[in-house]
């Protein structure tokens, strides 16, 4: 091909300049297409070169032995996923399966955990971690990081099996596009994600993945924590109907869209205790918004900002949650069976898996049944909406039972089922 291109360019060079004028429109357009293509390719190749260089900038410190052939590798982006991996590592350790736990945060609680058959290693963040993962040799790797083969983490030839585990109780509807396409298997909560993945595979004609419905490991962890917590209602001096505002982060999140208006309406009415629990990422990605909201709505006797690692205590205190499409909605539903008011209309589908699905996913449809779905115009009526939703909460039990099958089946068994699956995979390698 290269020689052909060079030959053609030579022919261009030997041709008298005005011979191009003798071309008919079809050929003229061909020349234009070629020029456009050449410019496009040049830009593309330049970008690939620059970004390719960026990939190799990783530091060699904290580097694990990348020549070693690992058995099972579990990779965590940081402590926020410890609840996802802990039940699995515990189970693998108890079965004597040699496992390497890599984490991108040196404050990951997993590093302090004592295991017999699980080694632990901090491998650095960003490019450092990508460098290690892209060179890895292992029978199998399990991770919550989506976008394998699309974003920075590429499939390593030395890894036989890539497995993804979902890290929220909702579906992969809101994942970025092609998040799961290049994994060999996905460990999901229930039928909703199984069906969603099958629909995407059908539409994209992509390779079929093994989908194992294990339930939710981190929800199991929260169940244990809740059982052992001994929480009492002590966040506020006076016990009143308590509203937990707990949205996702980003420009389409509730706090970005309507935070000011919603918090003003809630606090002005004086009828509620309010807990605001922004997504941890909000304090990083939308710091200005957080600073402004915390300045306008400082902590009082009836308003608290919750920045704890898990939201269990806040969920325990509240009678109702106001959210958008954050995964915490379903944690709240399954752990406490309490109603949720959601603002979901602002959900940005572009660039996400949702865009390639025929319909809204199970969890998005479920929002209509676990409380009311609201628009901005409903904020002025929020007080009556909260009261009516709380009074109807007994109807939630049946919905929760059905939703459990779709989103988080096998309560208490997810870690064991994940380990069963891992064991079955490595046996065949």
């Amino acid at each position: 091909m290269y020689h052909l291109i060079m030959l053609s360019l030579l022919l261009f060079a030997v041709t008298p300049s005005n011979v191009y004028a003798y071309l008919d429109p079809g050929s003229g357009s061909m020349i234009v297409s070629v020029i456009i293509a050449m410019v496009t390719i040049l830009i593309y190749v330049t970008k690939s070169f620059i970004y390719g260089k960026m990939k190799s900038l990783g530091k060699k410190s904290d580097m694990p032995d990348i020549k070693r052939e690992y058995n099972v590798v579990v990779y965590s982006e940081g402590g926020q996923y410890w609840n996802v991996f802990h039940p699995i590592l515990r189970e693998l350790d108890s079965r004597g399966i040699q496992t390497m736990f890599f984490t991108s945060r040196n404050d990951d609680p997993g590093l302090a955990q004592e295991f017999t058959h699980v080694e632990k290693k901090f491998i650095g963040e960003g490019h450092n971690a990508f460098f290690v993962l892209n060179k890895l040799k292992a029978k199998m790797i399990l991770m919550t990081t989506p976008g394998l083969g699309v974003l920075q983490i590429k499939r390593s030839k030395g890894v036989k099996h890539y497995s993804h585990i979902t890290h929220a109780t909702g579906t992969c509807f809101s994942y970025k596009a092609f998040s799961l396409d290049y994994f060999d298997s996905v460990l999901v909560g229930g039928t909703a994600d199984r069906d969603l993945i099958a629909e995407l595979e059908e539409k994209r004609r992509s390779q079929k993945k093994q989908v194992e419905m294990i339930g939710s490991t981190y929800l199991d962890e929260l169940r244990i924590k809740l059982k052992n917590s001994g929480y009492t209602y002590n966040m506020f001096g006076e016990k009143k109907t308590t509203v937990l505002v707990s949205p996702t982060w980003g420009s389409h999140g509730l706090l970005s869209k309507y935070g000011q208006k919603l918090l003003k309406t809630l606090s002005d009415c004086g009828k509620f205790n309010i807990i605001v629990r922004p997504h941890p990422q909000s304090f990083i990605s939308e710091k200005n918004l957080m600073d402004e909201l915390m300045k306008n709505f400082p902590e009082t006797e009836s308003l608290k900002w919750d920045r704890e690692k898990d939201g269990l205590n806040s969920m325990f205190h509240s009678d109702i949650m106001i959210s958008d499409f954050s995964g915490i909605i379903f944690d709240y539903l399954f752990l406490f069976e309490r109603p949720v008011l959601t603002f979901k209309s602002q959900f940005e589908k572009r660039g996400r898996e949702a865009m390639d699905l025929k319909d809204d996913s199970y969890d998005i449809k479920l929002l209509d049944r676990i409380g009311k779905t609201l628009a901005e115009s409903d904020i002025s009526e929020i007080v009556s909406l909260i009261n009516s939703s709380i009074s109807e909460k007994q109807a939630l039990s049946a919905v929760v039972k059905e939703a459990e099958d779709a989103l988080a089946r096998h309560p208490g068994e997810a870690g064991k089922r994940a380990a069963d699956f891992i064991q079955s995979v490595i046996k065949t390698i």
Partner: protein
Amino acid sequence: MNILYMIFCYPIELLMEFLAGHFNSLIGSQGFSLILTSFSINIIMIPVFWYAEKLQQRERNIQAEMKPKIDEYKGVFKGYELHLYISNIHKQYNYHPIYAFRSLLGLFIQLPFFVATYHFLSHYSAIKGVPFLFISDLGSPDMLLPLFGAGVNVLPFVMTAINLVSSFVYGKMLSKMERINIYVIAVLFLVLLYTSPAGLLLYWTCNNIFSFFKSVVFVKLLQNQKKTAPAL
């Protein structure tokens, strides 16, 4: 450079000379022999044109299929992330930007014909001083319209008019940007060829008439193929 010309263009030039000479000896008219040569070369070129057109169409089709997703990602992603997502779209469609060069193959096949035609008609002494119909000398600019004491060449305008009609028909298969480009090229031809010999313009005007019919047929055929192709 000369070796390339001898390998790729000279045989075609010899063929044109052979055809033009024989047609002239058969019908005794340099003008009509140029027209017949133009049509004969075009008929020989049909499979080549068709192949080149199909290559270009394949490129256009795949670009059109990828466009909605690429536009979607451009709306939400930036920088490196956007680059990665666009690369993945290419991967999904088994495409690489380098494949755009496939359309260059069509041009590579056609280019020797263009060069040979230009070279042949620039040096074809048989048409010098030869009148044809209303043209007084096929070897000089036509100057058919006497204005302001000098002659205005009409054949370049006729050729451009045919080029524009042909571009309009052909342009139905193209993007807006490509359509603008071919109209600009058609107008550019007018400027560049304005002072060319009438014989050359006669040849190429006939070539473009043929090209017009070819475009009509190709557009129909490719549109029918597109309609019957299974949707992805």
